[in-house]
């Protein structure tokens, strides 16, 4: 059963999630070089989309996703609007199918594996129909990196919510 959410709490959820999305976008534009390996997390915003708080104000959420998508385009030098075009429908689909509503970590992670595969599959399909020219190996690498990163963001989210969001929605 979906817990009723006050309008204030709904707005706060959306603002906090948008802020988390902004951080993930900045994080996505950075690369890390450890032991001679380059690690990139361009798909990190997908985790934030997946864990987007249920009951968050949809209008603020859409605007948050749209603006952060544009920012990611600019930071990565990709065509403007590309990431927003990907993030917005994925977010809508996730909300429609109730993604990320599982209670336990294991179940949520498995659900995320499905969504991550769908996301990667979307790019592979785009390459297949020659709409996008993407490198499949780096796509696969980024997908795996995102699955490894998921537990960190999952636990950070529950910890942050305990600190920031109280029952009154402040």
């Amino acid at each position: 059963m979906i817990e009723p959410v006050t309008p204030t709490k709904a707005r706060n959820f959306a603002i906090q999630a948008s802020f988390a999305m902004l951080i993930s976008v900045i994080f996505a534009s950075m690369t890390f070089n450890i032991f001679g390996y380059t690690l990139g997390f361009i798909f990190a915003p997908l985790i934030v989309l997946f864990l987007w708080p249920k009951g968050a104000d949809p209008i603020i959420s859409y605007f948050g996703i749209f603006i952060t998508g544009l920012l990611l385009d600019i930071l990565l030098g990709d065509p403007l609007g590309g990431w927003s075009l990907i993030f917005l429908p994925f977010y809508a689909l996730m909300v429609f199918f109730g993604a990320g509503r599982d209670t336990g970590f294991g179940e949520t992670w498995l659900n995320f594996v499905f969504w991550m595969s769908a996301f990667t599959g979307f790019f592979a399909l785009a390459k297949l129909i020659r709409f996008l020219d993407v490198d499949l190996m780096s796509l696969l690498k980024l997908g795996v990196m995102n699955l490894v990163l998921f537990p960190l963001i999952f636990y950070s989210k529950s910890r942050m919510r305990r600190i920031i969001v109280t029952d009154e929605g402040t």
Partner: protein
Amino acid sequence: MIGRGSGFQKRRRNSRLIFTGLIFLSAIFYLASVGNDNAFKSSRKNVEGVGAKILTYLTLPVRGFEKLIADTGNRWNAHSENERLKEKVSRLSDTEARLNDLSFKLSRFETILNVDVDSDIPETKIAARAVSENDGPFAKTALINVGVKQGVSKGDAVMTIDGLYGHIISVGNSSSRVLKLVDLNSRVSVMSKSNQARAILIGDNSPFPTLSYISSQADWDDGMTVITSGDDGVLPMGLPIGTVVTENEIRKVKLFANRNFVDWIWVYPYDPIKTPEEDPVPVDPVDGAGMEDTTSQETGAAVQEDLSESPLQ
């Protein structure tokens, strides 16, 4: 609380409208900016400039941590590395003496023959940090923290300590974007250092870009050093790129700048050769004739004169 009343229905309808509107707007942005470098140019540059500044500070601890790990590895190998370097220095000191001798001879020949063989490679270079490197599925670009203010301009070559890394594709006030050699859109005219065979180096998002448009007479072999040819008039001649390797009978280039850890890079400001249309000779106000006409006539006359004195006639 949000109930299931008319207010809820209205809000739901509004949110659907906004969702559709934002998708539509994203599509317009996308279609306008695909294949059009000038779309939203100024807005992009402003955001990139701010982004580069923020990322410069944010990446400092990350780069520090990476350096710490790299330093630990270096210390571990310090003794063997020291021995290897000593051997290399003794070998190179002999080479240096020979090089100095050759350099002296070369300058003497240049003076005798009165030829201009100055290197195209600019002597000034601008140090910068790659604050964000996009190694994603689409573009292979990097954001660097220098721009117009520091003297960077579009088309400038970007080098790492090992070799050519890419070239500048867009410049802001204090940030620039570099298109890496491996990017799908990268095209650089190159040549073999040993036999000057020409080719075009085409990025294909793989670590080894492909050598294309190789002439049938050209003799390319594995291990040959590839440098920029300068034929495109954009990059200076002689910048080191990599060595030739063959993969499935396709000639590819193993880049010198193929190390994963790229932090400091150098931008080489270079004035490309201007076309006559871009660099017209000012019209003489007295007789209204273009200087180039006079010059060509003079040159023609001089050539005719030379031919008339030729011993072959």
